[in-house]
């Protein structure tokens, strides 16, 4: 019995030590690794319509995945050989760790670039721009962000910047009296909560809200109100301190924007006949124009 106890203790502390001992030494860059192994692992969302999702036919595709396919093509051109292309599903909880421990070389998964996140990983240039807005049932008394005062507002569990924006607004009395924030597992459950009246409004990226309304039984019963509360530029998540790899990803992105190919892919997913109709805002167009750095 006593021996078992000691063995247990040793195992316990051994595990703790393994967790703490983290030698951050990686001699090899991502590009070198891809060249050596001949394979790349890319992370995509499974439930982010239309960035990366599984459609009615059970096929995994999306805006991000189309961009990813092109990135792999460019890599094959650059390295002059066929590359094995592994697609890994990621979610907002796993995406950072998987890049940090280099299981995944790049995550293309509708991730907002934030300073806090920059401390742990790197981001590519922004490739998508949206902002937060408020979704309400048609005819609601909520017409803008400040009308959320005293109401119940739903938000996604992992949508940090939105929760932060709400907290800040409550702190500096832009929303006064405070609203109650109700968190949901994912946007689908959040939308169900909004339909049932558990929350009076739902607060997230407009691109996501547009997706929710598009999938609703009666899209005309819902409206997105107010102006952008925060800007949400999305970037690809890259391992920290690997500028060769980041430069390559950025160069590919800039090339796509310059050639007009980017806009075609955007139209495919967000255009009038796309999965989620979400026309490019003026701000977004300007951002893309600014990104076409000279050769």
């Amino acid at each position, binding site marked *: 019995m006593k021996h078992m106890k000691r063995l247990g203790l040793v195992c316990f502390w051994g595990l703790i030590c393994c967790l703490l001992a*983290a*030698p951050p030494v990686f001699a090899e860059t991502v590009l070198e690794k891809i060249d050596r192994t001949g394979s790349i692992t890319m992370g995509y969302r499974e439930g982010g319509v239309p960035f990366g999702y599984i459609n009615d036919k059970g096929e995994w595709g999306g805006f991000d995945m189309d961009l990813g396919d092109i990135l792999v093509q460019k890599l094959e051109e650059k390295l002059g050989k066929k590359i094995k292309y592994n697609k890994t599903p990621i979610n907002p909880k796993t995406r950072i760790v998987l890049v940090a421990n280099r299981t995944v070389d790049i995550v293309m998964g509708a991730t907002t670039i934030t300073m806090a996140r920059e*401390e742990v990983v790197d981001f590519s240039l922004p490739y998508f721009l949206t902002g937060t807005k408020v979704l309400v049932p048609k005819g609601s008394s909520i017409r803008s962000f400040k009308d959320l005062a005293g109401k119940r507002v739903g938000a996604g569990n*992992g949508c940090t910047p939105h*929760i932060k924006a709400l907290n800040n607004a409550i702190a500096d009395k832009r929303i006064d009296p405070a609203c109650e924030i109700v968190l949901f597992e994912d946007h689908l459950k959040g939308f169900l909560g909004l339909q049932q*009246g558990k929350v009076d409004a739902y607060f997230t990226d407009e691109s996501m809200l547009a997706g929710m309304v598009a999938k609703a039984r009666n899209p005309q019963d819902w409206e997105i109100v107010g102006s952008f509360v925060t800007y949400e530029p999305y970037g690809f998540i890259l391992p920290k301190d690997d500028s060769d790899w980041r430069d390559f990803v950025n160069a590919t992105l800039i090339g796509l924007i310059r050639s007009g190919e980017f806009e075609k892919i955007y139209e495919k997913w967000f255009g009038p006949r796309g999965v989620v109709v979400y026309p490019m805002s003026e701000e977004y167009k300007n951002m893309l124009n600014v990104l076409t750095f000279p050769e």
Partner: protein
Amino acid sequence: MLDYNFEWSILWSQTYGPWLLKGIWTTIHLSLLAWVIGSMLGLMVALARLAPYRVVRFAGGAYVQVFRNIPLLVQMFFWYFAVPALLPREMGRWLNHEVPHLGYYCGVVCLGTYTASRVAEVIRSGFLAVPKGVTMAALATGLSPWNTYRHVTIPYALRISMPLLSNEILSCFKNSALTMTIGVMETTGMAGLIDSFTFHGLETTTAASLVYLAITLCVVAAFARVEKKMRIPGLMERSN
């Protein structure tokens, strides 16, 4: 091997420290409330399953099978999303629109009723393990059937069930993590939230694990004391 900077200080930073404490506090009172419901209801269901009336026995059995055999996660969604929709219109409206922190109450009720189904089985097995001779002896001394139950069988059975009951209360604490799926910000939920704010998931997850470990170790210690205190000399002595 991780290319990851550990920053344990976020756990007690000014913003996130209080969040984590709030989460831990929620875990504790939510689980304790659920345990109160679970143990009371569980005892009643166990008695129902042993009752001399067939209908009551059947009802008890049905309760146990339903609540024990549906995944807890599904039950959480059921209480939170489906129950208000199934109730009469006005009541459902009231629940959805007026009750603040509906998720919390649904979580308590869900965890409580689920725990009850498991506690009922544990206590029932305790009752069945009471030697027939003990009950018969009590009756033979002239105690009424109710008094036999009250003073002999129930105390005896509960003592037999004790080690397994401690198991159930531990599960109750651990299962409380599932309430995060219906928006309750308990330890796991808070850890996840802090993770998404800071991208320091390994620290928060480690902290959450240690919190659960600490809580459950406290419960184990408390139960060991209670067991020792309640022990009937000469009966069910455990050799350590």
